[in-house]
C-alpha cells in the first residue's frame, strides 16, 4: 500500500464536509430558487438598509470586542508566561476552563446575572458577553508566543541599555505581534457571525450579521441566506489571506 493512499479517507471527508457544502453555498447564493441564475440575492446585501446596517454594527462590535480582548488578554498572557509570577502551567489551563462549558449555557447564565442585578440588556451587556466568550481565544495565542520566546532577547536589550519598559516596547511587543494577530483573527470573524450571544444578551434588540443570516434560514429564504453567508466567507478569506501574509514564517501563535 502506498503511503499517499492513506490520505484517501481524509480526502473523502474533506470533499463531503468541506468542499461540497462550500460549493452548495455558492450555488444557492447565485440561484433564484426556481432553477435560474441571478445576482439579486447578493445585491440585496448592499440595498437592504436593515442588512447592511446590521453588518456595519457587527463590524463595530467585533472591532470593539477584539480591541478589549487585546487590552485585557495581553497583560494576562504576559503575566502567565512570566515564570516569576506563574510557576505552573496549570494556571494557564484554568484560563481556558470556561471554554469547557457550553457557550449557550454560559451566555444565558450571564444574561440571568444581568437580569438579577437589574442591568438592562443592550450594547454594554453584549460587549461584556462577547469579551467573556472570546477572551481565551486571545490569551492563548499570545501566551504561546510569549512563553516560547527566548528570554535572552529581553536580556540582550537590557544589556544594550534598554530599561525594562523600553525592552518591552522594542523587543517583546514586536516579537509577540504574530500571537496578537492570531488572536485577533480568532476573535474578530467569529464575533461578526455569532447570533446566539447577541440574541440572548440584548433580547434581540441588537441584531448582528449572524442573526440576520439565521433569520433568513428560519424564514426558509435559503438563497438569500446563502448569499449573505457567501459574503461572510469572502471576508473571512480576505482576513485570513492578509493575516497569513503579514505573519511570514515563524508566527506559530495558533493553538487550534
Amino acid at each position, binding site marked *: 500500500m502506498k503511503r499517499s493512499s492513506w490520505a484517501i479517507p481524509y480526502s473523502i471527508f474533506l470533499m463531503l464536509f468541506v468542499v461540497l457544502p462550500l460549493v452548495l453555498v455558492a450555488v444557492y447564493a447565485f440561484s433564484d430558487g426556481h432553477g435560474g441564475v441571478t445576482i439579486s440575492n447578493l445585491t440585496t446585501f448592499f440595498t437592504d438598509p436593515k442588512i447592511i446596517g446590521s453588518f456595519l454594527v457587527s463590524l463595530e462590535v467585533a472591532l470593539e470586542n477584539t480591541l478589549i480582548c487585546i487590552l485585557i488578554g495581553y497583560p494576562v498572557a504576559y503575566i502567565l508566561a512570566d515564570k516569576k509570577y506563574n510557576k505552573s502551567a496549570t494556571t494557564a489551563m484554568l484560563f481556558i476552563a470556561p471554554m469547557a462549558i457550553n457557550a449557550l449555557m454560559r451566555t444565558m447564565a450571564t444574561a440571568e446575572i444581568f437580569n438579577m442585578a437589574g442591568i438592562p440588556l443592550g450594547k454594554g451587556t453584549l460587549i461584556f458577553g462577547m469579551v467573556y466568550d472570546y477572551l481565551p481565544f486571545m490569551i492563548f495565542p499570545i501566551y504561546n508566543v510569549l512563553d516560547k520566546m527566548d528570554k535572552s532577547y529581553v536580556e540582550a536589550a537590557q544589556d544594550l541599555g534598554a530599561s525594562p519598559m523600553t525592552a518591552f516596547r*522594542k523587543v517583546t511587543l514586536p516579537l509577540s505581534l504574530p500571537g496578537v494577530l492570531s488572536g485577533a483573527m480568532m476573535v474578530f470573524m467569529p464575533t461578526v457571525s455569532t447570533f446566539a450571544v447577541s440574541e440572548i444578551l440584548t433580547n434581540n434588540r441588537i441584531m448582528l450579521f449572524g442573526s440576520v443570516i439565521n433569520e433568513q434560514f428560519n424564514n426558509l429564504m435559503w438563497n438569500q441566506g446563502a448569499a449573505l453567508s457567501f459574503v461572510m466567507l469572502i471576508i473571512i478569506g480576505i482576513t485570513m489571506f492578509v493575516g497569513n501574509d503579514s505573519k511570514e514564517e515563524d508566527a506559530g501563535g495558533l493553538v487550534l
Partner: protein
Amino acid sequence: MNRDDIIINIEHVSKSFGDKKVLDDINLYVKKGEFITFLGPSGCGKTTLLRLIAGFLDADSGTITMEGKDIDGIPPYMRPLNTVFQRYALFPHLDVYDNIAFGLKLNNVPEDEIEARVMKVLKLVSMNDYEDRDVNSLSGGQQQRIAIARAIVNRPKVLLLDEPLAALDLKMRKDMQIELKEMHKKLGITFIYVTHDQEEALTLSDTIVVLNEGRIQQIGTPTDIYNEPQNEFVADFIGESNILNGTMIADKKVSFIGHEFECVDEGFGENVPVDVVVRPEDIYIMNQLKGAQFSGEVKSCIFKGVHYEMTVETDNGFELMIQDYNAFEVGSTVGMFVKPVDIQVMKKACTANVFKGVMTSLNTVEILGCEYECPETPGISKDDEVNVEVDFDKVDLLDNKDDAPQFGNVSFILYKGDRYHLTIVTPEGYHVLADTHDVWDKNDIVGIKILPQDMKITKA
C-alpha cells in the same frame, strides 16, 4: 598591585538557587584590558558568575565593584558593559544594521555617527555589506560576528562573552578564536570569557580562573595552570595527565609508582603523602632499559595525528599514559624516565574521610545523614559529637543503593594509575571520597557501605 589597574573586583561573593549553592565565597579581580576566562565543567557556576557581573542576577552576599564603585543594585542597562550571549540573542525582527545600532539608538547617538560606527564595526568583524541582511538568513558563524559587533559598537569598558563559540563547528571555532584574540588586542577592552573548553581557555586567555562546584580551584596564567596545577581537579581538567599517589620523602625527593624520583619541589616536610602529576608528553620512553628510571610493558598504542598515545603498565603494576612521536610495539618492554622539572607535586587536600557525627547509641553513629553501625569506643557514649575517620579504600561502593544505609552520586572520577579515586555526593550534599578498583561511571548511583571496624572514632 596598583589599584587603578583593577577594573572589576569580586569579594566573598556567594549565590544559591534554592538549596543549591552555585557560588561559594568567590574572590577575584580583573585587570584593565586583560583577557580573563572562567573555565570549568557545566554546572560549576561560571555562567552564574558572569550573570552576576552583567547584573542579571544579584549576589546573596559579597560585593562586586567596578572601577572602585559597588555595582550592587545597579540594573544591567546602567552598567558600562556588554554581553555576547551563548545563542547570540540577535533580534529576529531587526536586520543586521538595526541589531548593531540598537544600543547606540537608545543612547541617542546622532544618526550619522551611528552609521559610521556600525560600518566600522562591521568591517572589524569582516561582515561589510551585510548591513541590510535579515539576521535569520545568516550562518551560525556570521550571527556570532554580528553578536560581537552589536556588543563592541557601544564601546563598553568590559565585554562579557558567555561560551560564544560553543555552537560553532570545530574549524570555525578555531578561526574565531584567532579573530577574538586579535580583536581583543585591537580594541583594548577587558574581555571576560566563559567556557568549558580548556583548550580554548589556554589559547585565548591572559588569566584563567578554574572553577568547580562553585569554588575557585586556581587562578593563573595558562602556562601556570597547565604546568603547575594546584590540585587534582585542575590537573585532571586541564589537558591530559597522569595523577598518582606519592610520598614526599624529603625536599626534592618524591616517591611514586614504587620508585624514587628527583623533583624540584621543597617545603612539604618529610614522608608526607602527596599527589603527583606527570603530563603524558613528559614521560620519555625508549626501547632500552639503560638509562631508564623504571620499565614497563606497552599495553596499547593509538595514533593521534601528531603523536602516538600509549598505555604502559609499569614494573610495579601502575598504568601510565604516555605520548610520543614514535610508536612502540604493543607487548614490548620499554624503559622510561621523567625529568625532575616535569614532576608536579601537589599537597593532598585530605588523606582520609573525616565525617562529623553524633553517637545515637554505644555502637551506632549518625553520619552522612544516616545511622551507621560503629565499634564501641572507650570514653565515648550516647549523644557525644564525634569525628569518624574512614580511609578512602575502606569505603565500600555497592551497586544496589538499598543495600547500604546511605547512597550517593558519583560526581568526580580520577584514575590514579592503579585505582580510581571517586568523589561521591549524597543527596544531602555530603562528600565521600573512595578508592576502588571497580569501574564506575560519572553520575552512577552507589550505596555507601562502611564496616564498623574501618571507622576510627574520636571526640569532636
